[in-house]
């Protein structure tokens, strides 16, 4: 199903946006360098900008159609937005900022729990304060809470986590995942962080100078590193699908089962049987001609080299086929020569368990992989 169908053209000064993509993903990531038009698209979806030409449809509902003269005003769209610059109401305290959207949503439609959101964002001690007394990150968290508590039909988040620390992000991520998967609230996320996108996105749109450079399911787009180089993305990697197969509580480990083989990762809370997406960053993978011994790395995936691409200068992306899963390893050109890596060669991909830090793992539903 197409959740988000955007096809707009718009001019602002010398900048021309010409964006067209159909996202069937529940979390659509907009990715691109500064000034590439991400906020402009967010504004068009949210109803803050009337595009010169085009059409925007969300979950089958036409919000904008310049040909038919359709333009649903922003207050009827029920699209919660976390703005790049906060935009808290200066005359209301934090509590009333958070509850603002509540005044206008039907009582029945409330899903987000105030206490839960406040807790999640760690802003309970700020409730009676005015926005002007908050720190940068505190403002950002209140802005996120405000959008969440409006119980939107769609959530637009323009770099919501930019100035938050890792610990706080790690607390917010699972909530966004739940919202995306269980709450059925599609999310459009603008982010410069590849790990954020890799973890959360089901669909990625790569923008550059107002044009869509690539768009598609996250697993596909993230594998193509060359598109990203232009867009400022340097971290390539493969997304593979895996199932929780067992937990080893003694060592605090979890064993996953993928087509490529068994993967040992730090203990997860997900029950056995949960389907997960796992991101194997190309730079985290080492290649060995023989099965290694006496090595601290717990994951050794046997496979064949399917192709050897040129990547940036020094390094080469080696595509592997490990039991049907595509895996990419980035190694130096020197290693390629020394080890004589070429298509067809059987190799072992070695990955440290520790390399799977929680951020590169996300729960997923199989059809969206």
């Amino acid at each position, binding site marked *: 199903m197409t959740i988000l169908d955007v096809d707009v053209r718009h001019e602002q000064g010398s900048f021309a946006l010409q964006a067209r993509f159909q996202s069937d993903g529940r979390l659509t990531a907009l990715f691109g360098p500064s000034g590439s038009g991400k906020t402009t698209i967010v504004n068009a979806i*949210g109803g803050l900008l009337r595009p010169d030409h085009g059409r925007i449809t969300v979950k089958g509902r036409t919000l904008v159609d310049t040909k038919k003269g359709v333009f649903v005003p922003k207050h009827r769209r*029920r699209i919660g937005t976390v703005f790049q*610059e906060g935009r808290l109401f*200066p*005359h209301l305290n934090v509590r009333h900022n958070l509850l603002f959207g509540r005044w206008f*949503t039907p009582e029945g439609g409330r899903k987000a729990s105030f206490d839960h959101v406040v807790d999640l964002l760690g802003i309970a001690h700020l409730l009676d304060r*005015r926005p*002007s007394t908050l720190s940068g990150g505190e403002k950002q968290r209140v802005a996120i809470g405000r959008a969440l508590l409006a119980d939107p039909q769609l959530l637009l988040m323009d770099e919501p986590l930019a100035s938050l620390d890792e610990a706080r992000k790690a607390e917010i991520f699972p909530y966004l995942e739940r919202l995306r998967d269980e709450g059925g609230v599609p999310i459009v996320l603008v982010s410069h962080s590849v790990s954020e996108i890799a973890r959360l996105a089901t669909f990625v749109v790569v923008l550059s100078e107002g044009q869509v450079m690539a768009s598609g399911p996250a697993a596909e787009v993230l594998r193509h590193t060359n598109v990203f180089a232009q867009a400022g993305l340097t971290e390539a990697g493969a997304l593979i699908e895996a199932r929780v197969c067992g937990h080893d509580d003694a060592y605090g480990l979890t064993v996953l089962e993928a087509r490529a083989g068994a993967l040992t990762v730090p203990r997860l809370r997900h029950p056995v049987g949960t389907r997960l997406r796992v991101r194997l960053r190309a730079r985290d993978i080492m290649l060995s001609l023989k099965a290694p011994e006496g090595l601290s790395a717990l994951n050794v995936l046997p496979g064949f080299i399917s192709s050897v691409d040129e990547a940036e200068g020094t390094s080469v992306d080696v595509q592997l086929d490990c039991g049907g899963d595509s895996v990419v390893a980035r190694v130096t050109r020197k290693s390629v020569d020394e080890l004589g890596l070429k298509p067809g060669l059987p190799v072992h991909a070695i990955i440290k368990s520790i390399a799977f830090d929680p951020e590169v793992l996300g729960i997923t539903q199989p059809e969206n992989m």
Partner: protein
Amino acid sequence: MEGLSPEEWTAVRLSLKVAFAAMTASLIPGVAVAFLLERGRFWGRQALDVLVHLPLVLPPVVVGWFLLVGFGRRGPIGAFMEEYFGIVFSFRWTGAALACAIMGFPLLVRAIRLSIASVDRKLEDAAGTLGARPLWVFSVVTLPLILPGIIAGMVLSFAKAMGEFGATITFVSSIPGETQTIPSAIYAYTQVPGGDAGAMRLTLVSVAISIGALWLSEWLARRVRRRVHA
């Protein structure tokens, strides 16, 4: 200096009543007109702007004359108001309040306009995305943010009403207890040789009242500012 005579006390009370009525009555139209002028893009905006400023540009006597012609018992608007709403302006304190309201209107509108212009429209947009329809956005975001301007406008309107004389006396003349405000009483004193002491006495009362009003407004403004910026 002696105290005030009973008639003077009457004038003081009446002046307060008139100024207060003028200020409150012009508040809502003032906000509305300020909004139209600052935000509106309609035909006749320029004309409305000129109309609002006229009481400032014209000598008060001329404004009083126009009021008499329009709002007097025989004037088209006056006759209409009397017939349909039972509101009579001529020779009533309501007429004095009307004259004062109109004379203070440009000041009120300007102050509110300035505040509206300085409101960050991105905040209004944000309120919209949270589901607030325009009228709600206005009430819960714009209005609180322009409160400083509204307070300033009210001060100007009240102060102007305390001092307004030309339009009032021309429109509703000076009837003790009904339309004789402090300025009318002062006027009477200045017209007779040796009336200076009486004029000065009333002037001091006016000054005292305005000190009170200013103090109150500053206090309110501080509260509002603290709400917004603290």
